[in-house]
């Protein structure tokens, strides 16, 4: 089992390496430390959001409202800090709580009312985006204090070899580590894998399904809130359509990283490599001058191919296990 999980992450890592080498070969502006740190900075938000989404997808659910919640969180920081003069860090905390509230609401609707995740979060996708536009009057808000903007813009350093590292990358790293610890080394994490693999079996073995699922969606909401704050700091403005289409990139990253949409399988590390693939793909395509519409097209294809690869892997494994089943049967 462990070997298979390893192999899953190995596949996405190979893809990452091939793309990296390809772009480095194609343009000499790609593999510079400046450019790579720039990618890390830009994709730290997606990484944070994708960590949450991994937890949801492993638990057997899905959340397509992540992009909208990021947008709502961004507008919350902007409104409170720039228009109402609230302390910026307090405003950020409120925005993260708004994200948490959205996630918890998703979780409650899914667990308590028994609505399918896709529909519940589709409703949230529409409602949160609408709220972001209504609250902001469809305009972007700026005028943040420098201390806040430095979160997304000013690097710390210099470190040996790597040089300067943006602060947001540290924030992302902290939550990636938290996600890994949570999923791998806690009973709760194992409960999430068990719920995704077989809800009935998990229930019968005494796992609190309600709490497990609710936690998964709340955690994702919280991370979306954080992602919104990070994005606001990086672009120095709160925009109502911030994070539009992020669900697309996040789901692709998670599935590329080896999580199965059927639940019960996947890892945060795989997801992060998946985010890395998205990051270098976007950046590399930009550098070699591929227009945005083509990039969106590539991403759509990548999403479907990632799921196809997952299907193929499942079929192969099923065949392999059928085979070994047969051989052990012969032996006994």
């Amino acid at each position, binding site marked *: 089992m462990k070997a298979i999980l390893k192999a899953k992450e190995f596949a996405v890592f190979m893809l990452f390496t091939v793309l990296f080498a390809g772009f480095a070969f194609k343009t000499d502006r790609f593999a510079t430390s400046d450019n790579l740190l720039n990618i890390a900075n830009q994709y730290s938000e997606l990484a944070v959001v994708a960590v949450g989404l991994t937890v949801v997808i492993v638990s057997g659910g899905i959340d397509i409202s992540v992009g909208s919640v990021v947008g709502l969180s961004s507008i919350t920081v902007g409104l409170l800090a720039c228009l109402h003069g609230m302390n910026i860090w307090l405003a950020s905390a409120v925005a993260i709580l708004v994200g948490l509230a959205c996630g918890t609401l998703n979780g409650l609707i899914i667990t308590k009312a028994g*609505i399918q995740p896709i*529909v519940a979060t589709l409703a949230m*996708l*529409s409602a949160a985006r*609408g709220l972001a536009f*209504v609250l902001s009057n469809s305009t972007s808000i700026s005028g943040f204090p420098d201390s806040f903007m430095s979160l997304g813009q000013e690097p710390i350093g210099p470190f040996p070899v790597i040089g300067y590292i943006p602060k947001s990358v540290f924030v992302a790293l902290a939550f990636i580590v938290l996600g890994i610890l949570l999923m791998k080394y806690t009973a709760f994490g194992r409960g999430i894998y068990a719920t995704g693999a077989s809800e009935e079996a998990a229930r019968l073995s005494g796992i609190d399904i309600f709490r497990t699922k609710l936690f998964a969606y709340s955690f994702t909401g919280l991370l979306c809130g954080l992602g919104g704050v990070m994005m606001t700091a990086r672009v120095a403005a709160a925009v109502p359509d911030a994070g539009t289409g992020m669900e*697309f990139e996040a789901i692709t990253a998670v599935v590329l990283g080896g999580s199965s*949409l059927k639940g019960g399988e996947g890892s945060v590390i795989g997801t992060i490599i998946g985010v890395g693939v998205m990051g270098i793909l976007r950046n590399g395509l930009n550098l070699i001058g591929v227009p945005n519409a083509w990039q969106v097209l590539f991403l759509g294809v990548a999403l479907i191919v990632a799921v*196809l690869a997952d299907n193929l892997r499942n079929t192969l494994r099923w065949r392999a296990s059928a085979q070994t089943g047969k051989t052990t049967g012969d032996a006994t």
Partner: protein
Amino acid sequence: MDDSAAALGTNKGNLLDRLAQVRELPAIIFLLMSLVILSAVAPNFGSSTNLLSIARETAIVGIMGVGMTLVILTGGIDLSVASILALSAAVSATLMMRGTSTLVSTFVGLCTGCACGFANALLITVLRVPPIITTLGTMGILRAAVTLYTGAHSIGPLPSSFDIVGTGPISALLLALTAAAATFFVSRLSVGRYVLAIGSNEEAVRLSGIDVDKVKILVYTLNGLLAAVAGMVVASSVNSAQSNTALGYELNVIAAVVMGGTSISGGQGSIPGTVVGAAIMSVMSSALILLGASVHWHKLIVGGVILTAVLIDKFRTTHKQ
């Protein structure tokens, strides 16, 4: 449809209980209420221009909604309809601008819609990619294709012979025909019955020897075709096609379907209900404009409406048990 008939047959006692089992009822009540309130509150609501524009909007959402109802009845979903709409509209508009006859251009546009729906269907059935992921992917791919195809320019003005498609009465007629044909399909044809059966229990249908994949391919292709029909109405009414035509409409369509009483888990639903749902959606957006509210409230309300509708459906199914 099926369970309202069942309710009439078995439970003759309580009228209220029987009414509660009519799927379309909450939507009809809501529509009537909003019509009464709006004609009292909003000054120009009853004007013929406004009513005609509501009729057209209802037709656009409703025609797509009928296709979406079929898809949802099989237990699937299609997020790519708005992108299919935009692509078919752009293809037809480009051909018209090149001087191809209106009829041929429209036909090619409709074929484009079918082809997109068919591509979705192949991914879902042959390659076993879940509907939500397939159509999330094709939503992005097709929208990008429209942007590349149109070069982000508006294609128009379209020839005057095409104007008639997007007028209020003709688009309403298109909706009526579509809804009638789909109702006939679901309730009278055996393949239509399979659509309902697949949504209730796909495995049982497969085991009774029916080619489930074929039925699904038919349904997703029809859905593509209907999105293209709606695309013709949109293109004709705004007299052009753009890369952002109908952006985000998939949510309105899904909201209309679930509001009409179709269960999102498949197997149960109503095509007339979807038409009522589409009418509610267009009345609401018209009301927001007339009352001078920000159009962005629309998204917020759509989210609330989807949620309320699925909660009502959930309540109904648990209540019945």
